[in-house]
């Protein structure tokens, strides 16, 4: 209990129970707005997309969009000092773009070249930049100051965002829309589960923050995952004599 109270008063920490959210009032407003837009437009579109496509088609679209983003992943693996991941990413991009027909077929995975997921928000995290305040971005959804700053750099790291070619604007709009629909389709079940939670705003805030922390660790568990678990001694079995602290 003392540990929990202490967490609540810390300005910014990564304890299991708190996320630094000084703009909660504003963020909740944006969350409500996003929910409205989602229910009116994004969710029905995603469900429609699922209804008129089959899994291989959606897989092809997702592969194509993922492949377009590989230059960003490559740059971030380099910035994070991960040479093996950088080579994997470069090899995946070349192979999937050519043999995989512009990235539609994930040939690289078939021959066991692993996919890496890196972005500039993660790179900043690897460099030791803290999350900063939690932010709910309009349409884009959950983020924090560090990751939101990273979004701009990600856009700058992608040559497709400034390369000039015939129909470049239309291409960027089409891939942007397709990316949003494809991403929302893959989240249909997860968002349903989220909406069933007692407090979806809090659940999303915690889930996002924990997921990003795990992504910065490249999916590895924390070194001592049980270190900060809260005490149950104030709450359990009701027999005071049995719950004297060990210390």
């Amino acid at each position: 209990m003392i540990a929990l109270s202490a967490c609540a008063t810390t300005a910014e920490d990564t304890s299991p129970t708190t996320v630094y959210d000084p703009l909660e009032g504003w963020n909740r407003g944006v969350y409500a707005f996003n929910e409205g837009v989602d229910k009116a437009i994004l969710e029905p579109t995603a469900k429609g997309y699922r209804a008129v496509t089959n899994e291989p088609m959606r897989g092809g679209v997702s592969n194509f969009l993922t492949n377009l983003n590989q230059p960003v992943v490559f740059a971030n693996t380099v910035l994070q000092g991960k040479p093996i991941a950088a080579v994997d990413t470069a090899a995946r991009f070349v192979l999937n773009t050519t043999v995989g027909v512009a990235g539609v077929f994930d040939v690289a995975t078939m021959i066991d070249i692993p996919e890496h997921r890196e972005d500039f928000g993660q790179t900043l995290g690897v460099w030791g930049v803290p999350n900063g305040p939690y932010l709910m971005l309009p349409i884009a959804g959950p983020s924090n100051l560090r990751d939101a700053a990273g979004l701009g750099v990600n856009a700058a790291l992608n040559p497709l965002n400034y390369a000039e070619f015939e129909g470049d604007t239309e291409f960027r709009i089409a891939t942007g829309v397709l990316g949003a629909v494809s991403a929302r389709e893959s989240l249909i079940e997860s968002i349903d589960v989220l909406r069933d939670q007692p407090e979806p705003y809090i659940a999303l805030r915690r889930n996002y923050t924990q997921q990003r922390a795990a992504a910065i660790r490249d999916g590895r568990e924390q070194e001592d995952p049980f270190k900060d678990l809260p005490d149950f001694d104030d709450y359990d079995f009701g027999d005071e004599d049995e719950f004297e602290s060990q210390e």
Partner: protein
Amino acid sequence: MTSPKWILSAAMLAMSAMPAFADTQTEEYVRSNANDVLASLNEPGLNGDERRAKFQTYMDEFTNLDAVAKFVIGKYAKRFSEEEMDAYLTTFRTYALAVYEFYFHEYRGRDVKVTGSTDRNARDSIVDTEIVRADGQELEVRWRVLNRGGKYQVVDVALNAEGNLIWLAIEQQAQFLSILDQNNGSVDALIAKIESMTDDLVAQRPEEAS
């Protein structure tokens, strides 16, 4: 004559052996009870209500739902009156059993294998298990087990999601505290929310579990 050195060595040996001993017992406690709980949801000879009654009996033995209920309301556990607490505990118990039944349904009758354990101290352990679903998908589940005067009980369960350990009671605490904070600590508001979630879970119950 017994030398002090020998006594010291014996004491150190006993101390070093203690965590392993606790691990074995705790691991066996989880293995046996988790399997019983999942088996209770998979008895074709029983109707839905009978199965549910059996499941609830096992869950009461396996877990300490009152401790979990109080933990998930944090500071409010000491602020509710006795009457409020009784009403809340009853509502929470119904909800928690409906949640566990709903989520364990997919794993009914499956085998729970213990893959390891960690003693945080002599009275607080984490047991790692693996459950393979009928469709072959593996689920890593960790059980937090407290030993109070030789009685073991589970107080939290964690799922591993891409390197994230999601502890269910800790997540629930964050959400329940937010609900209470937004409603000036009103037990009625929390109970109304919990009851509506229980109703949703019952409505979503798979046909074979009804």
